[in-house]
C-alpha cells in the first residue's frame, strides 16, 4: 500500500481531465483540500465573469473522487453513480477550494458531501452530494 500522499498524487497525475481543469490538492493528514486556480478557459459567463457551472460541478466531483483515492486505496478510478450539485453563489474569477466529507463508506458504495468556497469558507458557493461505486483492485 502506498501512502495517502502518493495515492493522491497518482490520482491527480494520471487523470488527464484533472490537468485540463488545472486542479491541485493538498493533504494534511487524511484531510484533503482541493484547489482550483482561476483560469480564463474555465469561464462560463464572461459578463460577471463567473466560472462555468459545469466546471464547478466537475471540480466538486473530482474532489470527491480524489478524497476517495486517498482513503479507499485502489489503482482504479472509483465510479460516480449519481450527484446533485447545488449552486449557492456565482463562482467568481478567484481560486476555489473544496473539501469532501465521506458520510458513509460501505463495502461497495460511498456517500460523499463536498463544499466549495473561495475567499471565505463560511460562504460556500457550491456543494455536491453523491454516491460513488468503489472500485476494488483485482
Amino acid at each position, binding site marked *: 500500500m502506498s501512502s495517502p500522499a502518493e495515492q493522491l498524487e497518482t490520482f491527480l497525475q494520471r*487523470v488527464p481531465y484533472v490537468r*485540463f481543469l488545472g486542479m491541485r490538492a493538498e493533504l494534511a493528514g487524511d484531510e484533503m483540500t482541493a484547489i482550483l486556480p482561476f483560469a480564463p478557459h474555465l469561464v462560463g*459567463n464572461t459578463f460577471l465573469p463567473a466560472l462555468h*457551472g459545469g466546471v464547478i460541478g466537475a471540480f466538486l466531483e473530482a474532489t470527491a473522487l480524489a478524497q476517495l483515492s486517498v482513503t479507499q486505496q485502489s489503482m482504479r*478510478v472509483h465510479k460516480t453513480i449519481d450527484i446533485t450539485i447545488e449552486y449557492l453563489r456565482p463562482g467568481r474569477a478567484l481560486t476555489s477550494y473544496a473539501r469532501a466529507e465521506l458520510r458513509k463508506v460501505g463495502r461497495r458504495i460511498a456517500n460523499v458531501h463536498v463544499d466549495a468556497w473561495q475567499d471565505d469558507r463560511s460562504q460556500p458557493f457550491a456543494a455536491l452530494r453523491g454516491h460513488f461505486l468503489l472500485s476494488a483492485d483485482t
Partner: protein
Amino acid sequence: MSEVPTTVRQMAEHMATSVPQAAALGFRLLSVDVARGSIEAPWREDLVGDPDTQVISGGVVITLLDHTCGLAMSSSAFAGTAPFSTATLDLRIDYMRAAAPRAGVIAEAHCYKLTRTIGFVRAEAWDLDRSDLVATAQAAFILNRPHPTGAAA
C-alpha cells in the same frame, strides 16, 4: 432549425461555441428549438477521466449537461416575449454507464415547464446510441427578469 427565430439560432451558436469553457471543450451545436437544444462534446485525449479505459471524463459530461440545460433555458428566454437571464439552482446527474472508449458525448435538453420564476429542465446524454444512455440530468433554474411586473414573484 429552419423555423426557429434567427436571434435564437444566433444565441445558441454563440452559447455552444463562444463561451470560453464551451470553446475549450470543443462543443458543437447540433440543434436548437424553442425550449430545446442539443450539443456534442467530441472525445479528446486531454479530456479523459479514466486512463485505463480512455473514457471521456464525467466532468465533461457534467459541463455538457449543464450547458445544454442552459441552452434549453435560453432558447425559451429568447423565443418568449419577455427575455430573462437565468442561474442554475441545482443539477442532478445520474450516470447509467461509462461512455465508450474514445467516444464523444451528445446531450439533448428540454425545458418542460416554465413558471414566472423557475424553469425545470431534463436532459439526456449518450455516446453512440440514443436508446442506450450514458447519463440523465434534472435541473432547476431561477429566472431573472429585467423588469418585474404585476404580482410579486
